[in-house]
């Protein structure tokens, strides 16, 4: 016979106003195995907790049920209370009579009945609760940061400054990411490169950071505190140690391909450094376009290199490394505009995306910052900026707001006037969103000081007309359809998740939303953590973000990683699945449904009819298991049980409600 104590909380008036506390206490006292029932105004307070402790000791309680608010709120509080009185915390059960009862019901009599049923359920389960013990898992004190844009850079620097080793893996030949492509940054008009480059250099020189550029994470195994990653360092074909970055190789290289960094507005060579401030400032040979590799001829760069750094035989290097925490900062892409033919993007060279415009105004860009029309290299006089191209568009684009376009378009309008005082910017917008520090002021400056004409409305179609672009739109405030003869049209194309984000999510065992952005563990309270423990998110890979927001989130993610790495050991959650081998039939359905890869196959030997037989069964890795319970519902013979939520306990709860 168990000795169960039930403690009913009033939660001030939150519960007491809707639930008859005295009635519930009396009913609880009569439930099977309940030998003690009491109530108090605030069970979570010092006095309330003392009541529980005293009763555990005095009444020799071996199980405790607290009927109060959601376990999310105070389960840990009452676990500690029980532990302080010498009771294993997992012998405590919470009946949620606030969120599940008093807050959602009005009728006192009915709510009281429901509260009693919820307590009866908790009592039935508590009677079957067993002592559970957390185990200790050692932590590998090193972090992996995936993505070398401003988010990854910031996270890496913060973790490294805290004294932990960091490996920063970047897919392209240089770190810097999108921010390196930008000219100025809003709302201060700082030169993007000027504030980014020092950070890039700091990453390269930091004694705690190992930089892997032109590298990709191929595989991640393990779990929080003990990840094991496989990193492929793609062959650069250039010896990092020998190269001095003199530039002779790319001067001499005869192959030309479109530059990714310059948004394909100009050509680069097959051996190249993506941009002058690249870190490391060492070229790579793009084997897909290099004549040496495509046609087995050429070899000019090797001949020309004074340092003998060119090595065509270099091979990919595959590394296995262990990490305690992972920060994902893989950034974003721009929406493909194939479905938006009305803007003539791709059909007319003077219709650009904002990122292309950014390159054209950038002093390190294709026009040396002079901003010339791609069609005829002339300065544009009338530039039409179109907002929300694919953003807030559930039909052809993305339903969400891309968040940064309002601000960068205001910036572009300002930069246009600064380059050409005679030029006129027109901005078609649906709504202006400037909810950031100094953002609204910046936008107003674009209008009032820089004379940008904002038109609330959309553009129906851009008609290329000779060397002009006839823009047909509407100014909805005046109620007139308008036509503007433009020299250049700039489209604020929507931000989207990286096209391979779902693959990375699968590799890491984290989840994505319907738009393939990585999902955070809680939209408000855990915004920098992924659902999988030990993996943190920074920047636009989690949703559209500007630079200040990305940097803040990166520092937040870094802080979370530091908290994790600064522990020698982690306490495991004891509510994990276990396999009853005698019931397990070895169908391994549990392996297929486990989102965390926590179940594996193993072979056991047993005697049947006097013969030793080998048989396959499932086995749970307790460190990987997150206690989601998917395996238990897939298990037909009921061989897999989630500790703390066993089939037996849940059946007892169902019976307590139904019978």
């Amino acid at each position, binding site marked *: 016979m168990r000795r169960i104590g039930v403690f009913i909380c009033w939660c001030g008036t939150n519960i007491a106003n809707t639930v008859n506390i005295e009635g519930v206490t009396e009913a609880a006292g009569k439930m099977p195995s309940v030998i003690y029932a009491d109530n108090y105004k605030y069970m979570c307070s010092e006095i309330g907790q003392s009541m529980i402790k005293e009763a555990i000791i005095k009444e020799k309680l071996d199980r405790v049920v607290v009927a109060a608010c959601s376990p999310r709120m105070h389960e840990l509080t009452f676990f500690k209370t029980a532990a302080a009185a010498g009771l294993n915390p997992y012998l405590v059960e919470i009946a949620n009579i606030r969120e599940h009862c008093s807050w959602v019901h009005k009728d006192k009599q009915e709510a009281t009945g429901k509260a009693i049923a919820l307590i009866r359920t908790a009592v039935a389960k508590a009677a079957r609760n067993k002592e559970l013990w957390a185990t200790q898992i050692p932590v590998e004190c090193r972090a992996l940061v995936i993505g070398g844009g401003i988010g990854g850079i910031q996270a890496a620097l913060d973790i490294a400054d805290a004294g932990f080793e960091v490996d920063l893996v970047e897919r392209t030949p240089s770190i810097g990411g999108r921010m390196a492509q930008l000219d100025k940054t809003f709302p201060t008009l700082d030169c993007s490169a000027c504030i980014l480059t020092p950070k890039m250099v700091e990453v390269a020189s930091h004694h705690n950071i190992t930089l892997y550029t032109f590298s990709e994470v191929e595989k991640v195994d393990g779990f929080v505190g003990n990840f094991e990653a496989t990193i492929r360092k793609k062959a650069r074909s250039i010896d990092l140690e020998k190269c001095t970055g003199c530039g002779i190789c790319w001067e001499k290289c005869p192959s030309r391909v479109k530059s990714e960094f310059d948004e394909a507005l100009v050509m680069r060579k097959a051996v190249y450094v993506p941009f002058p401030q690249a870190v490391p400032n060492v070229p790579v040979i793009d084997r897909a376009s290099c004549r040496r590799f495509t046609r087995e001829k050429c070899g000019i760069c090797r001949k020309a290199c004074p340092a003998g750094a060119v090595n065509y035989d270099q091979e990919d290097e595959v590394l296995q490394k262990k990490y305690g925490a992972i920060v994902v900062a893989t950034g974003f892409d721009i929406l493909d505009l194939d479905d938006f033919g009305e803007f003539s993007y791709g059909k007319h060279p003077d219709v650009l995306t904002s990122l292309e415009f950014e390159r054209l105004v950038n002093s390190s860009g294709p026009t040396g910052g002079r901003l010339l029309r791609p069609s005829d290299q002339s300065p544009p006089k009338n530039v039409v900026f179109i907002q929300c191209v694919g953003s807030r568009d559930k039909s052809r684009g993305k339903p969400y707001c891309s968040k940064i376009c309002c601000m960068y378009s205001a910036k572009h309008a300002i930069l246009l006037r600064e380059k050409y005082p005679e030029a006129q910017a027109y901005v078609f917008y649906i709504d202006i969103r400037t909810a950031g520090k100094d953002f609204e002021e910046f936008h107003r400056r674009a209008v009032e000081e820089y004379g940008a004409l904002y038109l609330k409305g959309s553009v129906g179609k851009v008609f290329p007309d000779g060397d002009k672009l006839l823009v047909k739109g509407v100014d909805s405030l005046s109620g007139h359809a308008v036509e503007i003869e433009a020299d250049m049209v700039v489209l604020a194309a929507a931000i989207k998740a990286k096209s391979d984000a*779902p693959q990375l999510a699968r590799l890491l065992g984290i989840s*994505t*939303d319907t738009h393939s952005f990585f999902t955070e563990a809680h*939209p408000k309270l855990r915004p920098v953590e992924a659902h999988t423990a030990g993996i943190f998110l920074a920047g636009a890979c989690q949703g559209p973000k500007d630079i200040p927001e990305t940097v803040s989130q990166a520092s937040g993610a870094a802080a979370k990683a530091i908290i994790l790495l600064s522990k020698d050991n982690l306490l495991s959650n004891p509510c994990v699945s276990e396999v009853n081998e005698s*019931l*397990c*039939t070895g169908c391994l359905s549990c392996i297929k449904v486990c989102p965390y890869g926590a179940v594996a196959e193993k072979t056991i030997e047993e005697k049947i009819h006097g013969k030793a037989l080998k048989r396959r069964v499932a086995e749970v890795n307790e460190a990987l298991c997150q206690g989601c319970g998917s395996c238990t519902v897939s298990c037909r*013979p*009921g061989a897999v049980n989630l500790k703390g939520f066993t*089939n037996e306990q849940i059946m007892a709860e169902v019976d307590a409600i139904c019978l």
Partner: protein
Amino acid sequence: MKQLSEILKEVAFGSLSSGEAEMVIGWQKGPFWWQSFPAFITDPGGTGSLIWDPFSVSNLSKYLLKEVPEKKIALFLKGCDALGFNQMLRDGRVDREKVLLFGIPCDGLVDPARVEAAGLSKGLLQVKKEQEELIFYYKKGQRKAPARDFYYAKCLSCRYPNPVIYDQMLGEAVPCQPVERFADVSKLETTPLEERFSYWSRHFSRCIRCFACRNVCPACSCRECIFDLAEPRWLGKANELSETQFYHITRAYHVAGRCVDCGECARICPVGIPLAELNRKFIKDINELYGEYDAGADLDKEAPLLTFKTDDPDVSSGS
């Protein structure tokens, strides 16, 4: 051309006498015309009693769960049996290396009830099948009738008359001419909810909890069925209709996505509960929701209810 039943005896004899198999599971005739029982033969001399006739309906592979072989067990598989065998293979309940499979093409088996209903059973001694016809033997004389008229309903909708897995195929493949198998389910789906509930309640109220439906099922291959567990006790001992319903619905859920539609549960039921209809409703739903899937037909194809994909878009948790 040799009769299939002769070939069957030969291969059984061969595999036992060569030592390739230590046991052959086949069928042998019982005292009555409609009885063809499973036979477990370890002595090559005993293979003469093996038969293949229109009543060899039992799926022999289910016995593999009970027999723990040291050497191989040889057994005979019809098309439907092969699907069941494959499903047991997928569930990890049989060892492919430990079985020798002889495939038998089968265009249908005879339902004794139909013979009886046609008034042909009185004084009947033996039934043989020749081409498309059945020959009914009596003390005096014989009668003939088209075989298809006497087939089990489940055979008429069979889509896999030829085994999809075997080591050796006995006889020529037979053509497949299935009738629509979801007609009954579709009809039931259109009846009002209360009517459907009373339809099933009526059937389940007859259940005597013999668990034959479970025991015969190739998808029910657990070492210990949850309904046999003492703790937790999923099924109360008292004969309550609601509990019986719970058993049948749980059984259907447990075989969902794994049921090979062999129809054995319904055939074996001593009180005539149309259990296959319940299974087919699940099959139909799965086909509609996840695309066509035939359990047991293709081991490489992903099972729809046992696939977790991290690239499935999750619905974000909201606020």
